[in-house]
């Protein structure tokens, strides 16, 4: 039987990937961010996961508004990299896990979640910006990506994402083969990309969010989308993806590592929890 061995919440941003590719890991502005990933990578090396299930959001790279799915699940054997408009990064395609992907599709639909099932699922920085910091970029761990619409309103509630996490846990625990799964929730934390409030961050809220995610995620699941945006900026609403990760874990978790830095326009959070 498959098991959830832990969860990781991480911010994602094109900037992180660009800085990594340029080799800026030791530069004063970036070292506090990249150093935060080192203990989490060590933990992953120790617990040896067989699969990453990554709940993230697409940024109009795989999907466009001709048909924008609220939830979309990648079940293919390979996930290519999307060109986001400024060229691809030097990364190989990601391996998928069709056997688990189709099991997850069946389990979610049985559980009243109805994702668009994608045999081709190119992924953007929502998956790829932080991943090279956590594994070798020859991708030794296969990935099943689950995209959530948080860019074209109406978007699902935090409560819905928390319940999605519960459904992910049931799906993993009903997979008939041994598989050690780490669930990711990516996005946020506070940031706002346009308007008079461009560049707004809220470190107090970001840290309160990471506190509560660990100890009282149900309280975060009751916060409205309006409140997420009022506290963390329009794009800070991506934080709800972390609720899916937390919902996939049991009530009691052990914190492996936590990091928070905000060198530029986004509050960059990282939280690794063992189930």
């Amino acid at each position, binding site marked *: 039987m498959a098991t959830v061995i832990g969860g990781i919440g991480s911010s994602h941003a*094109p900037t992180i990937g660009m800085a990594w590719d340029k080799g800026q890991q030791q530069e004063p502005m970036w070292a506090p961010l990249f150093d935060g990933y080192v203990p989490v990578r060590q933990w992953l090396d120790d617990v040896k996961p067989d699969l990453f299930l990554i709940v993230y959001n697409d*940024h*109009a*790279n795989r999907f*466009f*508004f*001709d048909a924008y799915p609220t939830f979309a699940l990648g079940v293919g054997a390979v996930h290519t990299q*999307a*060109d*986001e*408009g*400024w*060229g691809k990064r030097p990364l190989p395609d990601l391996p998928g896990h069709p056997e688990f992907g189709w099991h997850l599709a069946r389990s979610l639909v049985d559980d009243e979640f109805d994702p668009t099932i994608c045999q081709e699922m190119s992924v953007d920085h929502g998956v790829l910006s932080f991943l090279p910091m956590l594994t070798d970029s020859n991708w030794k761990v296969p990935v099943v990506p689950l995209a959530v619409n948080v*860019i*074209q*309103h*109406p978007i699902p509630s935090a409560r819905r994402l928390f319940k999605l996490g519960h459904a992910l846990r049931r799906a993993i625990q009903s997979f008939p083969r041994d598989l050690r799964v780490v669930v990711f929730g990516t996005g946020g934390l506070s940031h*706002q*990309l*346009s*308007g*008079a*409030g*461009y*560049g*707004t961050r809220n470190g107090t809220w970001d840290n309160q969010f990471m506190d509560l995610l660990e100890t009282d995620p149900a309280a975060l699941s009751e916060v409205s*989308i*309006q409140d997420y*945006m*009022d506290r963390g*900026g*329009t*794009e800070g609403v991506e934080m709800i993806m972390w609720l899916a990760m937390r919902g996939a874990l049991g009530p009691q978790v052990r914190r492996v590592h936590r990091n928070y830095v905000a060198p530029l*326009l986004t509050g960059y959070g990282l939280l690794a929890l063992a189930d």
Partner: protein
Amino acid sequence: MNIAVQGGYVFTGEDSARSYRLNKMAVSLTSPENRVRFQADETAYMRSFAMSEQEIDLVVRRDWKGMMDYGASIYLVIKIGGSVGHTLPQIGAHTAGMTLAEFQARRGQ
């Protein structure tokens, strides 16, 4: 219930419908071949997407704030930026009514 954020743009379905052709042209720029075609003749390229003169003018003038006021998605606007050499910080500052230098000076960066 209407959703809105002070000092920001919340991209709704209604915005998406209004700005559809502009966003559709922008998403085409995720192809390197299309970026070259766009750069060779922006206006002709945009006309091939049946964009209105108003929409074309917003792009020609690099009026990022105007595009956001029109209802475009920031994620599509930055793809146009990618093709014309404007970065997210430049675009974001413009939508706040500032140049990038003014924005950075205000932030002490």
